[in-house]
């Protein structure tokens, strides 16, 4: 394949991936403020987060300044994202499988970053030993990531297919997602073992992309891996696998959202309460015109009489 095709493919897919991901993220973020529905533990509660307490424990809490920790939620999320604390705590048998799988994703992502840096170093003609260091690290990250991710994907596939707890809930989509991501890892591992120096090839490929080099050529095993990876990246943002975005909102905007009303929220709430309601049950008393405030004011039988 000529360089131009690679440029179109790679930048096209990355562009679509970013656009769809941003679109979906913004769509979630722009949903209206909802009623409070917090759930303990809330780590930003200073001194109380550990046992799950909240500022509501304080006597006349509205007279006190809220003590919020910025670091604790961050630590909580880092441990949750990278070590899968929830699964470790509540579903230990699943943990090694899903940890390997997710670690694979993180390691491969890190490998791409190192390869990107090393390709920039190549372009800027940095000393070869510096480039070498980055490529050595990328190479280790690559093989570790591909193997862990590949094993994780295969193990999860078997788990899904065989575990009687999971099986009734499986859909073809769930299997397909695992197969596709498994193929990314396995094709990567194949390329790594097939090529003499995977990391160098990868850096050169990325350099070719960045410099728009039309003479860009790559080995078959690597191009197979890159095509599968690009297909995955194209598919990813349309699926529930972008839970890495959703998770921010389920934690920060729902579980941990214990904010009392502030000025901005008050303005938004006034707009929301002014919306017409059209629920059909008789007791609601909606007619498509009356809004939330009108319905809340609906008189009791006594007052009507």
């Amino acid at each position, binding site marked *: 394949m000529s360089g131009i095709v690679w440029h179109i493919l790679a930048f096209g897919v990355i562009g679509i991936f970013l656009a769809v991901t941003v679109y979906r993220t913004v769509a*979630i973020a722009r*949903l*209206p403020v*909802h*009623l*409070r*529905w*917090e*759930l*303990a*533990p*809330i780590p930003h509660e200073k001194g*109380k987060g550990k*046992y*799950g*307490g*909240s*500022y*509501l*424990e304080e*006597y*006349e809490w509205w007279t006190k300044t809220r003590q919020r920790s910025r670091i604790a939620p961050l630590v909580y999320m880092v441990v949750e994202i990278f070590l*899968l604390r929830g*699964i470790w705590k*509540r*579903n230990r048998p*699943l943990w090694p499988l*899903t940890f390997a799988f997710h670690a694979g994703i993180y390691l491969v992502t890190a490998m791409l970053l190192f390869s990107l840096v090393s390709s920039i170093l190549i372009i800027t003609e940095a000393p070869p030993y510096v480039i070498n260091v980055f490529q050595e690290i990328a190479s280790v990250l690559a093989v570790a990531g591909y193997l862990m991710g590949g094993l994780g994907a295969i193990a999860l596939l078997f788990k899904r297919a065989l575990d009687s*707890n999971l099986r*009734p*809930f*499986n*859909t*073809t*989509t769930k299997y397909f997602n695992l197969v596709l991501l498994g193929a990314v890892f396995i094709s990567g591992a194949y390329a790594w073992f097939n090529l003499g120096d995977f990391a160098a090839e990868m850096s050169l490929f990325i350099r070719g992309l960045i410099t728009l080099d039309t003479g860009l050529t790559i080995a078959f095993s690597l191009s197979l891996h890159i095509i599968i990876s690009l297909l995955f990246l194209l598919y990813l943002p349309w699926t*529930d696998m972008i*839970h890495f975005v*959703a*998770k921010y909102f*389920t934690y920060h905007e*729902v579980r941990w959202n214990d904010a009392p*009303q502030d000025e901005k*929220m008050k303005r938004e*709430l006034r707009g929301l*309460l002014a*919306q017409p*309601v*059209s*629920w*059909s*049950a008789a*007791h*609601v008393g909606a007619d498509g015109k009356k809004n*939330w405030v009108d*319905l*809340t*004011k*609906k008189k*009791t*039988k006594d007052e009507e009489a």
Partner: protein
Amino acid sequence: MKKLKLTDIAKGGDSQLIDIDVDELVPLPPPYDKAEEFPGFKQLTEDQRERLVCNLDGVVSYAALPKPKNKAEEKKYVKQFISGLKKLLSKENNWTFLQPLLLSLDYCAQCQTCCDACPIYLGSGKNDLYRPTYRPEIFRRLVNKYIKPGGKLRAKLTGADIDLNWTTITRLYELSYRCNLCRRCTQACPMGVDNGLITRELRKLFSQELGWAPKELHEKGTMLQLDVGSATGLRPNVAIDNLKFLDEEFTESTGINVSTPWDKKGADILLIHSAGDIISFPESPIAFTILCNAAGLSWTLSSEIPGYDGINYGVFYDDVQLARVATRHAQIAKKLGVKKIVMGECGHQNKALMTVADRMLTRELNIPRENVMTFLENLVFSGKVKFDPTKNDFPVTLHDPCNLVRNMGVVEPQRRILRYLCPEFREMTPHGIENYCCGGGGGLSVMSDVNFTDWKVNVAGRMKFKQVLEAFADHPGPEIEKYLCAPCLNCKLQFRDVFEYYGAKEKSNLIFGGMGELIVNAMAIMKKPFLSWEEE
């Protein structure tokens, strides 16, 4: 035990989906381990099977669910269900929970981690029907199939195809009342998906669109409360009259002047009990009267509709009713000119007014509100009341009401009180924010239609009862008096049913009650115990 597929929900018409076998439920410790010694489930009569919709598990929680006469009528209900689904996903009709709902619909990874967190699923001996994932996943697939573009084709292609018919919707209705909304599953979900919320949304769809809701929560719940003042049917004059009667009774029995203030304009504190406490557990409101007076607080009750019944069942099934009740409570406080509202010992009541309805109470209605445990803690440690903790020299354990603890983060105030006033206080396992629900959460504790109570005492309340017994494993027999502190009316109602069913008073000398009673019992001024293990 029968293995269930998700698609089974739509199949089999009016026939029952599963049978509950009491021998498969999780075993209880002795002397409660012999299922045959207890009444078990009341089987439905032939007549009931004829008249009622009973196609789920042989338990019926709502006898008035309509039974369609023909296919056309069935279709009408199915259409209404779909229109309700659409409204549930619209900003105008459901801004209140749209974001949490969409997040919970779209991002479940099907890892089943939450199952082992659910006390109903565990108590049932892991019955597939009661998985916290079963009902939400059906709901998800119905949304994906019937609401999203291209959904029907995609459902066929991906093997996620569930039919929406009369059987599906009636089973879903009944199944939405096999959950305590305790959100232990939500806490266990690494993704932050809220299967408890989905259950509540489902109840909401049925209530707000089809007008289907349990009689005890709706017709004789919020509707009656907004109409006459209380879901118990207690009218303002009768409420005042009852408390006057109780004031006199307790003045006589305690030797302390017990006098409950009503409708005092300009008082600092409006205290809102549940009317059910006044009627069924009068020691609780009286304990508050004794404590508030002893501490010299400026406080009052309100006799304005519905200011003497703080319950808000809307939080269990209907946002409009939730808003109506909460607004009324706030309006009453505003009229009285109080500085803060304190809710009585009732978990959902505290949660409804303090957090869930917070964003519905705009402008001058947003009056400061304090939870009952913090209020009591401040009172106990204020130094204004003298205590003698040796008076509480019996084993005490603490039940954590889900709404107050897991859902509001009020964990330590009640423990600081117990560690001070109850030398033999011990925790259950697990406790605090990881507690098990009493089994009556989500409004279930007040529901008792047909044979629903049998399900509550056998399945929903099972893990809790087991846990309570284990907390007293050092004194299992009736020789030693034991106290289960359950600072929530709904939890107490559930414990009353469970204790009665299993004979916990006779077999274990175990009683339950609130926190206020325990505090008053330790007051130095009390000449004789406020708590009694003997029935009058």
